[in-house]
């Protein structure tokens, strides 16, 4: 993810879908690594259900900040050390859009 970050810095602010994001890697991250708590199909485990129908009332920027900064006093960790803001925005968008199934 480091070289991704460098790329993003080079390209200035990046938005979801712009060059520099690797949707394949991010999709894998969501299902495999988020999935270790939220389930491979995202319907919940120790972590809550994060399927589109469950989280549709959240704004994308709220989800993005949860991903980046976690939720204190819960098991949700801050991912800021591992992913960029643009990548978190892409994930939030991906979760809401419901291409996850």
């Amino acid at each position, binding site marked *: *993810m480091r070289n991704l970050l460098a790329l993003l810095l080079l390209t200035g602010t990046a938005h979801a879908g712009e060059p520099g994001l690797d949707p394949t890697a991010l999709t*894998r991250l969501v299902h*495999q*690594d988020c*999935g*270790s*708590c939220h*389930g*491979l*199909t995202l*319907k*919940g*485990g*120790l972590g809550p259900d994060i399927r589109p129908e469950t989280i549709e009332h959240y704004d994308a920027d709220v989800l993005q900040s949860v991903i980046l900064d*976690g939720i204190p*006093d819960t*098991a949700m*960790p*801050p*991912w800021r*050390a*591992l992913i960029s803001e643009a990548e978190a925005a892409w994930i939030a968008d991906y979760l809401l859009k419901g291409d996850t199934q």
Partner: protein
Amino acid sequence: MKSLISALALAATLGTAALADTIATGDLGLVIERAKGSVLLVDQSDRASIARIEGLGDLSHASIIYSPDERFAYVFGRDGGLTKVDIVERKIANRVVQGGNSIGGAISDDGKLVAVANYEPGGVRIFDADTLELVADIPTDSKTIGLVDVPGRRFVFTMWDTGETWIADMSNGPEPEITKITDMGKNPYDALVTGNGRTYITGLFGEDGLTALDLWEDDPKPIRVMPNYGRGQEEMPVYKMPHLEGWALTGSEFVLPAVGHHEVLWVDAQTLEETGRTKTYSQPVFAMARPDGRQVWVNFAHPMNDTIQVIDTVTKEVIHQFKPGPAVLHMEFTPRGHEIWVSVRDENKVKIYDTHSFELLREIDADSPSGIFFTARAHRLGL
């Protein structure tokens, strides 16, 4: 074995030799293929995969236990599916969807009951191992973790939300007798039981330390272990909960993966006092003792999950570090510990290493492999 005998009788009658091959299962195992809902039947001695069995549903985080005769595997899937796999016939023998979201299971000491712990709905359900019919339903109003079997047809399990541990005694028929132990601590995330069924230890996510129970006592009370051991001044993000299954008892000590810290902890098995810490490469997920207790193999959480460290239990020092490949999820020793099988999810490989020379012996193709479970688990309490 009954159906086998009748199959053999039939084969003899028909004069077909194919069915008359005896199938020994003692050196077999199953590998969870996480993405496709299949399991791979493998042979330890041949270091090979033999067959793929499909149709097991969502297998993220799936785990497996075995019947006492090593013929049937019970696979607990994330979709609440409980699948009974016949490894002799290489097919699904039975499958029920028993809950919304299960996390693991256990088989009673007599092999007659299979228990499943569920996140949704929270609780434990107990099934007839033969028919998979529901025998008992134990709601707990909490996500339920750390389910193990202990002697006397009993199961022990712990609640993530309420911090209680319950002992369900099934020795007097289908109605469980429940003993509830409260105040185990905040957010227990997993538990282990020692091989003799005496000590049950839960790891805590929500507070410092661990909690133990002496199950040989009539009225077990929570024993705080390493109460000052926390996630540090500055809480470290935990990208993956460690597992205590596969916990390590090495001679007179336990080795446990720390939560959030880059270390494993050593605890005296008798006094439950801390006896040391070994710094590790990253956040440990599994710390698994080689069956003889001489080594502990450790794998790590995302994004450092391409690496394994081997710790010598005499010196408590890392003696070997290597990178099997991207996303090392699980490890399983052969029963006597001469070799170890490692699942490398993102390379779609299971890799087999010699535990003395650390030489790579064989690679087996597998589709997003996660858990590896050998039939020898059939004879070990708590697995």
